């Protein structure tokens, strides 16, 4: 298939987004490879979340293209991009607070629920494999103990875990996590790292934003560093650790 071989799950090409005079994303090009954990790092306000928002369709790009598996998804509708296989965890968990954990998860996995007439006249049976997956992922993430609790009654850490499980159960081709371990305790951080590595083992493609250097460098296969909307470095965690440009921009050394 030429230059872009099969293992590129997500390909971003010269993406640009301006907010007034601010160039939030200024010509970014990079790839997320299939079955890998790719991390996007950079100082606060460097444009990481904006890149995520552009990929998932929440913001419209001024310029550039986003490809998912060779298919162009630039500026498509949010729900359309999601159905094509881009799943997203926000910086805040954004759970449906008045629904139970199980209902939150079912909303991700069951796409029959938007069919009005079917829901009105028939008993909407959820496919068995989806129920099995729900149980399996809940167990993997460690939220199987409180499936019937309302989301609003969960602790902060539990909310993050349910958010991660919900993003996985959306059956994505690429799982995008915006700061999955922000504000969680070290123990839970370790557990989330384990979960992500486990998911990678199962073949999931993960693309994440993270501030915690140790966490990122510990699990990522490849790291992309952005600063002021531009990519300043790209490589394995080892290469990034010793890149003088990164140390200057990101660690301020």
């Amino acid at each position, binding site marked *: 298939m030429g230059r872009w071989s099969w293992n590129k799950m997500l390909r971003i090409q010269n993406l640009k987004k301006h907010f007034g005079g601010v160039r939030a994303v200024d010509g970014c090009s990079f790839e997320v490879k299939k079955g890998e954990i790719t991390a996007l790092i950079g100082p606060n306000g460097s444009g990481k979340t904006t890149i995520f928002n552009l990929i998932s369709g929440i913001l419209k790009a001024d310029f550039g293209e986003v490809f998912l598996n060779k298919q162009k998804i630039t500026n498509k*509708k*949010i*729900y359309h991009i999601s159905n094509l296989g881009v799943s997203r965890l926000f910086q805040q968990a954004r*759970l449906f*607070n008045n629904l139970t954990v199980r209902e939150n998860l079912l909303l991700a996995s*069951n*796409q029959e629920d938007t069919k009005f007439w079917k829901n009105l006249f028939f008993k909407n049976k959820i496919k068995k494999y989806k129920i099995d997956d729900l149980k399996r992922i809940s167990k993997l993430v460690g939220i199987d103990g409180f499936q019937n609790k309302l989301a609003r009654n969960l602790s902060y850490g539990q909310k993050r875990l349910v958010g991660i499980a919900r993003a996985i159960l959306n059956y994505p081709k690429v799982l995008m996590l915006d700061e999955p371990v922000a504000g969680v305790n070290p123990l839970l951080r370790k557990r989330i790292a384990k979960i992500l590595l486990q998911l990678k083992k199962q073949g999931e493609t993960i693309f994440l934003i993270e501030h915690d250097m140790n966490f990122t460098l510990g699990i990522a296969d490849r790291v992309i560093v952005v600063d002021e909307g531009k990519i300043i470095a790209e490589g394995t965690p080892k290469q990034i650790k010793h890149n003088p440009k990164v140390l200057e921009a990101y660690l301020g050394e």
Partner: protein
Amino acid sequence: MIEAYFIHLLILIGIYIILAISLQLTLGFTGLLNLGHIAFFAIGAYTAALLTLNGTPFIIALLLAGVFAMLSGFLLSLLTKKLKGDYLALATIAFTFVVYAIALNWTKLTRGPLGLPGIPKPSFFGISFSSNFSFLILTLIIVLITYLIIKKITISPFGKVLEAIRDDELATKVLGKNTFKMKGYALAISAFFAGLAGSLYAHYITFIDPSSFTLLQLIPILIIVIVGGLASLRGTIIATIVLILLPEVLRFIGIPSTILGPMRQIIYALILLLILIYKPKGFYGKVELE
């Protein structure tokens, strides 16, 4: 005499239950700040009245009243596609004024402020519903159908998507749901039942004029929804019964009708105030809005 009075109250309760639980679908379950419910009620009432006055059979007019209200609900959802919260509330209030203004000024069709008198009592398949008791049976049947359909919607996975939209629309979109379409469905179904209620009202009172369809008429329905509790159908039904019967008690302790009207408004305002202070979720509400 007392029997006729109770039947009258029960019919009113029935019509209000249809209005309130259909408003719950948009307001309580989908989180749409829809203040245009009276407009759908008006569209239903005028459609039913005009059709039956021109010889259309009751049952067809009833369904068309629902369908016309539904179509206008769908139209409203298209027009307010990008609006949320307070802005949606303002737009739907404006919609109520537009419908009111049409009823008032399109005199060739609606006779404007003169109203439409002599709306026939319903009858179909040879059964006449001209007595109030038979009209009550008809009302209760429609209340039951409304309740069952809205209940089924809300407990189905479709209803869970509506609730997800209420809790976090962006997160719902990100899970792959076309929330715009779903909100359109919710508004259209809600409007359909408000239209049926309008039809029942027109045939029961046998006279309609624009003054029955102002924003003021929405207030008791909103209070019912808030007192009963957002997203609770049971609470809504109980609240409707209590709030309609409560002012009637005053009649029996000898308060004259002239004072009763204003009294009712004061009582409602007081109840609303007390609920908002002491029980902001309503009596049966489980939903906490952010």
